[in-house]
């Protein structure tokens, strides 16, 4: 039992990332409203970003900015163990911007669908398509 609890607490970030991913996937598949589906898609994207940022965390390390960068006794000797790994951060910066772009396109398409069918519910839209 203590083993299980320590395992959950030690990898809490990863458990939550899986949970958020499954919440987003459920919303994309099972929700009927188009805006709710888009919210689910965004939650899925942020879950993946959470996974990548969690990889970069190190125990006893500081944020990735050089400590002795300037001043009279400036030197640029870098001990990689003293800094959090910044590579996943840079990759995820791109992912956030791409996420907002897909959100904008998805909401624009939802507005066009609403103008055509006068509803955002998926089952009503499908019923109207079948009637034609």
């Amino acid at each position: 039992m203590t083993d299980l609890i320590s395992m959950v607490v030690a990898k809490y970030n990863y458990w939550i990332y899986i949970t958020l991913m499954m919440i987003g996937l459920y919303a994309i598949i099972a929700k009927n409203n188009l805006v709710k589906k888009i919210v689910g898609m965004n939650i899925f994207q942020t879950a993946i970003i959470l996974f990548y940022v969690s990889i970069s965390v190190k125990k006893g390390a500081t944020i990735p900015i050089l400590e002795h960068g300037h001043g009279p006794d400036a030197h640029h000797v870098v001990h990689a163990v003293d800094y959090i790994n910044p590579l996943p951060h840079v990759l995820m910066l791109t992912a956030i911007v791409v996420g907002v772009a897909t959100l904008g396109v998805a909401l624009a398409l939802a507005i066009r669908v609403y103008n055509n069918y006068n509803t955002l519910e998926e089952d009503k839209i499908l019923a109207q398509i079948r009637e034609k």
Partner: protein
Amino acid sequence: MIWPIDLAILTLVVVAAISALMVKDLLGASVLFGSYSFMMCLLWSIMGAVDVAFTEASVGAGVSTVLFVAAVFRTTRRTRD
């Protein structure tokens, strides 16, 4: 990383995500999604990813919420699920 704050905010993130999907009002859902994004931003500043944190605060919590509210304003607030 300060792990008690990390655990508390991770729990709040899940609560915000579930409530954003359960609430029966699209404007409420977009505001809850904004709070979800802002808590993600806090999480990233805790984990030491400061550049990701302020990009998320401006782009994720700011622009996404504005886009959602604009889309809800142009369509409808009502929803069945």
